[in-house]
């Protein structure tokens, strides 16, 4: 298993990420890090500041991928995708 990917522009960003949530937990999106096609797509599908999210399911053993409910839709995200999402 590879170590969790870190983002070049936020290596020591200590804010909570979506990946810190357990199944069934809810939170709000604060920000999506990195401006690249993956992040832009995350924003497009509804991970915008203030949006409510809930972790619906996560896969054994490393909680990768995750199923996230956002704005009336559910998306499966790989962990490194979910890692970009800062929550409050």
């Amino acid at each position, binding site marked *: 298993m590879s170590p969790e990917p870190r983002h070049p522009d936020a290596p020591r960003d200590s804010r909570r990420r979506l990946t810190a949530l357990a199944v069934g937990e809810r939170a709000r999106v604060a920000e999506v890090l990195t401006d690249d*096609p993956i*992040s832009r*797509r995350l924003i*497009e599908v509804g991970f915008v500041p203030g949006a409510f999210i809930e972790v619906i*399911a996560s896969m054994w053993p490393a909680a990768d*991928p995750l199923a996230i409910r956002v704005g009336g839709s559910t998306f*499966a995200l*790989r962990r490194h995708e979910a890692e970009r999402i800062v929550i409050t």
Partner: protein
Amino acid sequence: MSVDTAELRVAFVGLPNCGKTALFNRLTGSRQKVANYPGVTVERKEGVFAAPSGRRYRLLDLPGTYGLKPTTLDEAITRDVALGRVAQEPRPETIVLVADATHLPLSLRLALEVRRLGLPMVMVLNMSDVARRRGFAIDREALSRELGAPVIETVATRSGGADALIAELERLAVPTHPVPPVSGWQEPTAAEVTATHTEAARLLELAGYREPLRSRAVAVADRILMNPFAGMLILAALLFFVFQAVFSWAAWPMDLIDAGVTALAEFVRGALPEGSLRSLLADGVIAGVGSVIVFLPQIVILFAFILALEDSGYLPRAAYLLDRVMGSVGLSGRAFIPLLSSFACAIPGIMATRTIPNLRDRIVTILVAPLMTCSARLPVYALLIAAFIPQRDIGVFNLQGLVLFVLYFAGVASALLVAWVAKLIAGGQNNHLLMLELPDYQWPSWRNLALGLWEKTRVFLARAGGIILALMVLLWFLSTYPAPPVGATGAAIEYSFAGQLGKALAVVLAPIGFNWQIAIALIPGLAAREVAVGALGTVYALSGDEEAVTTALSSVIASEWGLPTGLALLAWYVFAPQCLATLAVVRRETNGWRYPLLMLVYLFALAYLAAFVTYRVTLAMTG
């Protein structure tokens, strides 16, 4: 693509899974034309319909997208067509934005982005019946006012469910005229995308949009079906059932087709005088067409399951469950659907890889697709197993069945291995996109299922059938000419080009235990793997109907080959890339010779290696 000014060009735009295709099917029925956009392998679906007034509409079903910032080739096409940037594709005069009424926020955001393109737009709330039943509410008129575009309701699954859309298009009466391409359009920035979300939320609030809480039943279903353990068990059971059904339900229609083709060939043989024409028709054309359509029952049944599972919303969840396993060898969970299709035939499987956004993932999926045991290998497996594996029980298992299972398993395992090696070669990074939407569950609609199947069948027959038929005729020629010299004793095929080639090949194949008879049979087997069975019958100069030949062949090879050769040929067939049609489709899908050649070389190398090891080990063990 002729520009008919009397027809209004309407493009359907919407999110993936919004019911766009169902609505398109409702309007156009089977009057559809499926092709590719020039230069790329993105499917172009067009259909026509006439309104009661007699006015004609030409509909273009654009690939589903979340926005005008593409991440896949498909999405780029949607953007480019809407902007008028695709060669030979006139810009549409009107856009129908199809929204799933149970899924409004993202659709409305897309609508806001599309509205900026400056084309007349109609927004359609599809599946409005389901939405109302589930407790969604929206003031359609208010939304229309705020959006500045008509908003109407449709139910694509019901007869007449699209009448409101037709009426609206008629009412708008957009004149047919060439629309110039957009100039100066800029891709929206992250901030602009966020702004459209805010705007969509504002409009929805003004229109009194309410959506129900996620239903308990769905939450429970997801908890079970997406549970890492229960979900996996259910998936395994489901796949087992599907395969069981594919093989048992397809048996009698396949027999029927087989009998029909044989009877037709017999009829031609009886009706025509002995000669080249008779042989070409009976052994080349009819046998060639027969070898393709005999697999249709299996393909149709497998696709019926795949389409039903896709419609119901389950397939993306299966991809979610398998993403970890497939990700560990460098594949995406999205590769699951193409690989599943490849068990029927690699050709539709390879065509289904278009949904994989990452090019490298897609290429690897294409390269390993032929390792899934396609139905054409079954007749070969059946013959060899019957000849070399004793009918014996080991515990609760039957030895022959067990060997068949091992062959299937060997294919899957080697696919994972090859993908893993490809990942090592291409660099070990694993940051590919999954980002897969898991849509709400719903019952599949029969009509959609039927139309979807019809389309898959048509595409398969057109793409595979043409190639296989041409090859069969070519191989017929190679194995018929030159005719045997007067007074020859062996089978006619021995003296033909194919026979000479086979004998030359036998030198190379001797180390893996293949004799010249096998080498000759492998050549016509290039058209489709199962043809090798018939070719072996020809080489051993057996006559009679197919069943008799197979039975006789089974005992001939059992006595002449020996176990090591039999097992080596089985191992060979797990890998052997003996399907030129697959290679032709790979060339088409990847726009070049590089990947088909790579596939050919690596599969031959693996086949040779596997057969060599099997032959030598068996030889050593049996003494």
